């Protein structure tokens, strides 16, 4: 009898003979996304739970040192590993402060929700008068009220009174925070503006004047740039360090460096102006507190940069949407227009109107400085050119203007977060992750969880500006070395967080968006690039839930067919893969994102809810 053909049990009998199914070829660095734990984590009120991540610390009896009361530099023996903050009581060093933090979180969150509505008296009047986009941007809850921006040191007093044991450690950290730079405040400053406005030259020259770049190096840049026929870029070379940037004379990625003035320690982020590099500009700006917007005053050039298609407006709107509240407008290249007061006034008038009426900056938070990055006029020294001295009184230099900026309140009382903006190796210390501490603080010896890989690691060293530190706080740009984790688990876009309160990861979110001046309407199914902190990822607008009144935030229409320019809406966005995100109500700075399409910024958004995380999606499919 002929063989019995196999039936149901072998439904695809031929498959074995044919080419086996091969997954799409991909060289993706493996991420351990599959092991992501259930990701919607609400801070637990239980102090026991909050302690879990630190039990090991107690077991191994790592004792922390008393925080130094003197400014840090005096006690920097070079070995960062040895620098620890001591806690008077060894028992669960950070668990109790956590409980306190949670209370504050709730309080803050409520405050933030309230802040989303711009119905308070302060703004009401301006909305009526102001142009649409501006009120829209304000509706995004962008702070700027006196209440929120104030001297940070004052505001850092503990909000609640913790129980005696933990009080000491918390106060120590706070004391450390307020003492660490002496009187100097930390400021993250991004330099933005249309391509070739002179951003890098201006800042390179400033760094030179402040002594951050020595004469010898500067001389070398002059010689070498001359050889390439690019001698006018010598100062820009201070920041444009890659070979491509130098040969092409264009900044491509954000350069980061640090300088000090009398009153401030400034982390400078020099953004690229070219429109193709806006993703990098967004990365830089999302780490900044304040901005210098550089304008090319040259006849014709200001107009090109300012008109539609130029990057002046786009940069300003991006900065405002990403939480930058104060801006100094540096009217640059004044040498090319003979220091003309008339032209200066024309530019400041146009920009002032745009920044306050459309971009949503408060009038008091916009200042102007005439200067020349090339000649170095009015950067750190009072102007000397007679044509400028003649009309520019009282004169304020760029540095003086920077000194007047106020740092924002840093969320150091929230759980630790650091969005990784770079991973690199360094001789001696192995692999480093870099980024800005988004909230909380971090010390060598801390256990952290790396999301979305869900791997734990221990912080080996914390560096600020290449110097080892005993602690770094929200707002600090740091390099961290980790132990106990492989480099493949940490990528740009990963988030290091407090193990007792890890970040959320999402594949689908609900968000409030404010739409910019777009060419075609947004419909459901619209593909976009989602820009968040240091990453950009493809995403799709999945649902248009409601269209909002831009001034009041009220729902105008449910389930609109499409969203047109300058409108505001609540939408659902699906991400191609899981991203670490925060709700705007929990972490203002970490709940913002931008949407771009076809090389244009189409909307600014705030994360309102995580609709789906990886786990749930897997469970469903």
């Amino acid at each position, binding site marked *: 009898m002929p063989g019995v*053909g196999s039936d149901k049990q072998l439904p695809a009998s*031929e498959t074995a003979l044919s080419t086996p199914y091969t997954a799409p070829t991909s*060289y993706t660095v493996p991420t351990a996304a599959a092991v992501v734990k259930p990701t919607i984590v609400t801070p637990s009120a239980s102090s026991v739970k909050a302690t879990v991540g630190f039990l090991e610390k107690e077991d191994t009896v790592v004792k922390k040192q008393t925080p130094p009361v003197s400014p840090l530099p005096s006690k920097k023996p070079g070995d960062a590993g040895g620098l620890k903050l001591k806690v008077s009581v060894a028992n669960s060093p950070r668990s109790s402060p956590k409980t306190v933090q949670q209370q504050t979180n709730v309080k803050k969150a409520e405050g933030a929700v309230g802040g989303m509505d711009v119905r308070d008296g302060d703004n009401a009047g301006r909305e009526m008068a102001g142009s649409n986009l501006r009120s829209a941007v304000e509706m995004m809850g962008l702070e700027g009220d006196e209440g929120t921006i104030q001297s940070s040191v004052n505001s850092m007093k503990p909000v609640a009174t913790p129980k005696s044991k933990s009080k000491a450690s918390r106060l120590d950290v706070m004391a450390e925070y307020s003492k660490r730079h002496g009187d100097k405040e930390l400021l993250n400053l991004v330099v933005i503006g249309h391509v070739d406005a002179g951003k890098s030259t201006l800042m390179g020259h400033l760094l030179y004047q402040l002594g951050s770049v020595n004469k010898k190096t500067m001389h070398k840049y002059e010689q070498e740039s001359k050889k390439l026929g690019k001698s006018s870029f010598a100062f820009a070379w201070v920041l444009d360090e890659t070979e491509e940037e130098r040969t092409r004379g264009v900044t491509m990625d954000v350069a980061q460096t640090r300088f000090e003035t009398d009153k401030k320690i400034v982390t400078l982020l020099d953004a690229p102006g070219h429109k193709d590099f806006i993703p990098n500009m967004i990365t830089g700006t999302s780490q900044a507190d304040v901005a210098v917007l550089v304008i090319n005053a040259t006849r014709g050039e200001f107009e090109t940069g300012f008109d539609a298609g130029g990057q002046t407006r786009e940069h300003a709107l991006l900065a405002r949407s990403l939480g930058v509240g104060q801006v100094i407008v540096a009217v640059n290249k004044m040498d090319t227009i003979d220091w003309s007061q008339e032209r200066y006034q024309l530019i400041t008038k146009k920009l002032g109107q745009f920044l306050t009426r459309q971009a949503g900056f408060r009038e008091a938070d916009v200042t102007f400085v005439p200067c020349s990055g090339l000649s170095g006029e009015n950067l750190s020294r009072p102007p000397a050119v007679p044509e400028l001295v003649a009309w520019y009184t009282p004169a304020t230099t760029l540095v003086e203007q920077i000194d007047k900026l106020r740092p924002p309140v840093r969320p150091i009382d929230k759980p630790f977060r650091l969005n990784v903006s770079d991973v*690199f190796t360094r001789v001696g210390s192995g692999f480093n992750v870099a980024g800005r501490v988004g909230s909380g603080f971090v010390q060598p010896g801390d256990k952290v969880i790396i999301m979305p890989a869900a791997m734990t690691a221990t912080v080996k060293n914390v560096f600020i500006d290449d110097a080892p530190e005993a602690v770094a706080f929200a707002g600090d740009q740091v390099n961290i070395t980790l132990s106990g984790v492989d480099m493949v688990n940490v990528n*740009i876009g990963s988030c290091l967080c407090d193990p007792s309160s890890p970040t959320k990861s999402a594949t689908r979110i609900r968000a409030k968006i404010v739409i910019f001046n777009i060419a075609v309407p947004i419909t459901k199914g619209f593909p976009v690039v989602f820009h968040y902190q240091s990453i950009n990822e493809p995403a799709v607008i999945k649902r248009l839930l409601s269209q909002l009144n831009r001034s009041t935030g009220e729902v105008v229409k*449910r389930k609109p067919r499409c969203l047109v320019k300058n409108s505001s809406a609540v939408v659902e966005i699906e991400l191609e893969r899981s991203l670490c995100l925060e709700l705007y109500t929990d972490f203002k700075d970490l709940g913002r994102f931008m949407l771009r399409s076809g090389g244009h910024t189409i909307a600014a958004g705030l994360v309102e809810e995580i609709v789906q995380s990886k786990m749930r999606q897997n469970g469903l499919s």
Partner: protein
Amino acid sequence: MKLLQRDMDKTNSGSVTLVPEESEDMWHAYNLVAVGDTIRSTTIRKVQTESATGSVNVSKVRTTLTVQVEGIDFDTQACVLRVSGRNISENQYVKMGAYHTVILEMNRQFTLNKQEWDSITLERIDQACDPAQHADLVAIVMQEGIAHLCLITPSMTLVRAKIETSIPRKRKGLCDQHTKGLHRFYNQIIQAFQRHVNFDIVKCVLIASPGFVKDHFTDYLFAEAMKMDDKTIIENKSKFVLVHSSSGFKHSLKEVLADPVITARLSDTKAAGEVKALDDFYTMLQTDPDRAYYGVKHCERAAENQAIEILLVSDELFRSQDISQRKRYVSLVDSVRENGGDVRIFSSLHVSGEQLGQLSGVAAILRFPMPEEEEEEDENDSDDD
């Protein structure tokens, strides 16, 4: 595709016998075969024989089977179609009603029988058998750290490789790491390129990126090709075209295909035509929203009013398992055509077709404005997930 035989009665019931000749034809086959059809092709079957001593012997035999289709799976990597269902013809090796999966691949003849060949399927056969030559296109869309190597045929965009590397950023005093990272990234693209690009069929290679990545990479590619003495790359230098895209993500292909420089170079412009049609839809939505609708209910209403000038519809809708759904879309297409409207059937494998799919799969540009009917609102959401 070669059409060997066509055997239909006047009710359009009957069969066709086809031989797929290129990878594109497998996509056409995928769009022709539907659940409920019967398919006949040679196939390989594992057969168990029991010898007199009782030992079981498994062997593989080649035989011809006819199955009633229950499941269809298109494998874009191998470009084969797996059709599974029950055997409906008596066979030496396979019992009636036994399950089997037939693999359709290039150069393997098959006969497909349908109760009713509708306008969409008949048109698909004509299109598939049109001998007009078309050039295959390779596009590399990239940005620093991300690249997609895609093969584009008239009706398919196939991602052959996705390269993703994290590149250390520019950093004070450590810029060489950035350069090294970039080169590592470029080398991976080159490897993928050598593996997947066959210049015998590829007539054009697009390299698209924002900024200078495309220029930088192309320079690097040719320098490496010289070093490796890769003659094929060097000899085909004239086939490379550099073009701007706003990102390295796949959906940026839309911008690339819409670039007039590119359209001019392509002999087949189906993909570009679809991009254009979708752009036109969005432009209309901007300028006159009452003349641009999406969603099947809205489009049907517009069709009833003979208002549709251009209907955009994703071929995915005609692959619906639900026969009544399928019929609904076929009659929408037929009615638009009867009234002199233009119908564009988008390939769901192209980026614009993907987007149309997300936009309910069907959209229309109207001849005259039609006010929006409020009560139909919730339709927007029905086909959401």
